[in-house]
């Protein structure tokens, strides 16, 4: 049974979710801040966490973005195999949603030509990933990604001999070198294996899992907890001003790699961790 969905519905969802993602801090992040307040030893660190909680309240109530960097628009569509999309090109529909959301929602336009730095004016083109899944629905995930944390992200093509220890080393090195720059406390997404670009995409997708939920794979769950403990020993703290809470979580996704390769991608996410979804 084929289900017809008009792409205008996708435009509307992208528009609405873009604004929501930027104004409403995730409940999982807020809970994480509350937990961090209990565990943070630094008085300055606690003050920063208090400010971030207050900021989230103001953003929600006054309809102001949590952060002025409302990000490049990253959108994941999961299109059910039984769906027939009508009404126009689906990628153009997504871009139209971004155009409308960022325009009418008073969000910042942060997309520009890499050489001239001329702003594109409407925060398009969106970064769009489309997957075909079972079923007859369309899931729309809007994941605005800011430049600060993204700039601290890294990808390493390790030799297989580097092993798990080599991966842990690179994660810690990346967080250490970033220091205060990505607005700690951060969430660290790690993609292991796959090809060069697949590792990066896995790292980004790992950031979509709600903070505080375990990794379904027990081995990876252990790795995540170990990495988080090691990261928080670095002492970077909230805003890098010193403290015990440098990261709120580490999420790992893993895929088979080439027999000659051990790719590891580390996507740093700031505490805004913006992602909202809707199902059509």
């Amino acid at each position, binding site marked *: 049974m084929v289900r017809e969905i008009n792409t205008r519905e996708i435009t509307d969802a992208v528009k609405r979710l873009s604004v929501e993602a930027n104004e409403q801090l995730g409940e999982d992040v807020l809970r994480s801040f509350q937990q961090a307040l209990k565990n943070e030893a630094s008085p300055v660190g606690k003050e920063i966490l208090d400010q971030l909680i207050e900021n989230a309240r103001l953003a929600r109530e006054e309809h102001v*973005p949590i952060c002025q960097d409302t990000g490049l628009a990253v959108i994941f569509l999961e299109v059910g195999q039984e769906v027939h999309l009508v009404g126009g090109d689906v990628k153009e529909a997504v871009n139209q949603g971004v155009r409308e959301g960022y325009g009418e929602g008073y969000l910042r336009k942060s997309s520009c030509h890499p050489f001239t730095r001329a*702003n594109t004016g409407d925060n398009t083109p969106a970064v769009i990933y489309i997957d075909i899944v079972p079923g007859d629905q369309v899931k729309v995930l809007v994941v605005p990604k800011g430049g600060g944390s993204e700039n601290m992200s890294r990808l390493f093509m390790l030799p297989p001999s580097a092993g798990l220890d080599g991966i842990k080393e690179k994660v810690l090195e990346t967080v250490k070198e970033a220091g205060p720059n990505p607005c700690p406390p951060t969430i660290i997404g790690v993609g292991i294996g796959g090809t060069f670009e697949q590792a990066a995409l896995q790292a980004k997708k790992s950031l979509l899992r709600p903070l505080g939920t375990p990794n379904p794979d027990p081995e990876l769950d252990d790795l995540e907890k170990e990495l988080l403990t090691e990261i928080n*020993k670095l002492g*970077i703290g909230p805003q890098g001003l010193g403290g015990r809470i440098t990261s709120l979580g580490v999420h790992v996704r893993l895929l088979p790699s080439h027999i000659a390769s051990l790719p590891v991608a580390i996507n740093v996410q700031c505490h805004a961790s913006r992602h909202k979804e809707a199902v059509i």
Partner: protein
Amino acid sequence: MPKAVTLSTPLTDEIVSSLEIGDKVFLNGIIYSARDAAHKRLIELLDSGKALPFEMQGQVIYYVGPSPARPGRIIGAAGPTTSYRMDPYAPRLMEIGLKGMIGKGKRAPAVREAMARYKAVYLGATGGAGALISRSIRSAEVIAYEELGPEAIRRLVVEDFPAVVINDTFGRDLYEEGLKQYRIA
């Protein structure tokens, strides 16, 4: 012991030299917003001997690209952008009188040296607290490069804008002190 200080722009060498890392500053008066693209243009103007859009002596630059203001608001969210990207330009501006920079994240050694040499401070605002920080901004006016949108140079009037001294004129660094105190080897 860090102290709380209320300051007004323009800043003098004396005021700037009295600040120490960790001090909590409440800034008042006029500050100028500028980030990557505007800094590039300012240096180009300097290089060709042309006048800048504002007199640099005593001024404070805030590294920010605000989101657009809803009707009835003075400015949108207005938290700091990451400062290292302005490192290539900052020493030249301090040479001609820039006394303060507000941003977030660490500065290069050359910038810290220039702060000691020319007497300027680097202040940190809380990254990601865009809505909260915007409350300290009483007016915002584009004075140059309107076409740069969020990257335009704006004259901002601030009232008790909260910031912490990250680098002082004595070469000290608050980030380094924080690591020393909280790092577990």
